């Protein structure tokens, strides 16, 4: 019996040790990947629809509203993350199952002056802050952030909308 139990121990011990060796790194790796998946969670979808900007209570001039929208379309198309970038109201988007939707709502707007910027270099900044929300098909928020666009030195006031849309495109690149 003694010899038999020794035999069991001699067989069981390497099995237990090997299991421990395989399980420990696996457990640790599992912890790492869960942390990574939370901080760098990426979504894979085929299409995005860009809704028309909501000016909210902010007196956002129509040309800024339109420039925000058109620049967003352009910059998000440039990311190459989606097979289709649908405009607001596009009938073709209705049947896409993995569609995400980008909503924008103005939070703040200050119209500066191109002349002041170019003469003084320290005054006349145009800036706009817009809430950007990307929702999945079920309406759950994937992104919900306030993004600021501005033009500080050279360029037209509408350049703030270009700056804003470039920042949104970066968020899209990091998210999808």
């Amino acid at each position, binding site marked *: 019996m003694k010899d038999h139990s020794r035999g069991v121990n001699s067989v069981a011990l390497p099995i237990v040790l090997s299991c421990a060796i395989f399980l420990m790194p696996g457990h640790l790796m599992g912890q790492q990947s869960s942390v990574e998946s939370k901080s760098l969670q990426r979504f894979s979808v085929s299409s995005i629809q860009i809704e*028309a900007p909501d000016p909210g209570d902010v007196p956002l*001039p*129509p*040309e800024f*509203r*339109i*420039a925000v*929208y*058109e620049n967003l379309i352009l910059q998000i198309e440039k990311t190459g993350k989606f097979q289709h970038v*649908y*405009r*607001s*109201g*596009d*009938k*073709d988007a209705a049947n896409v199952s993995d569609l995400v939707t980008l909503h924008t709502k103005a939070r703040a707007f200050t119209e500066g002056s*191109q*002349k002041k910027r170019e003469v003084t270099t320290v005054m006349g900044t145009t800036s706009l802050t817009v809430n950007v929300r990307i929702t999945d098909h079920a309406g759950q928020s994937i992104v919900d952030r306030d993004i600021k666009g501005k033009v500080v030195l050279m*360029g*037209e*006031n*509408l350049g703030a909308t270009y700056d804003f849309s470039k920042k949104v495109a970066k968020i899209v690149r990091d998210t999808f």
Partner: protein
Amino acid sequence: MQLQAQGKTVSVDASSILDISTDKDSRQDITGAAHLAAEAIPYGGSRVLSLFSHQVDVLTVEFRDTNAAYHGAVFAMAKGKAAPFRKQLVALGAKTTVPTAGPALEKK
């Protein structure tokens, strides 16, 4: 109305225009050859004009295409040209949220 931008030409029926508005707060002053060039330049093209100009009218057009997709276009026009152009489009069936009855009602 025909729009040309980035090598694409789009025909827009006046009745598909959801809103058309002008901005009387001019930003640039167009003179000489630039005045002729700036008849209707979509946003983007007007960047060049800003180098030698000071006053323009801004015309904003919102419309839907045949697939109901929403589009917007911003034009820089020679000063004083936007309001008559808008009036003309409204007469052709374009919708507008800004009254076009007379200059007194123009947005300032």
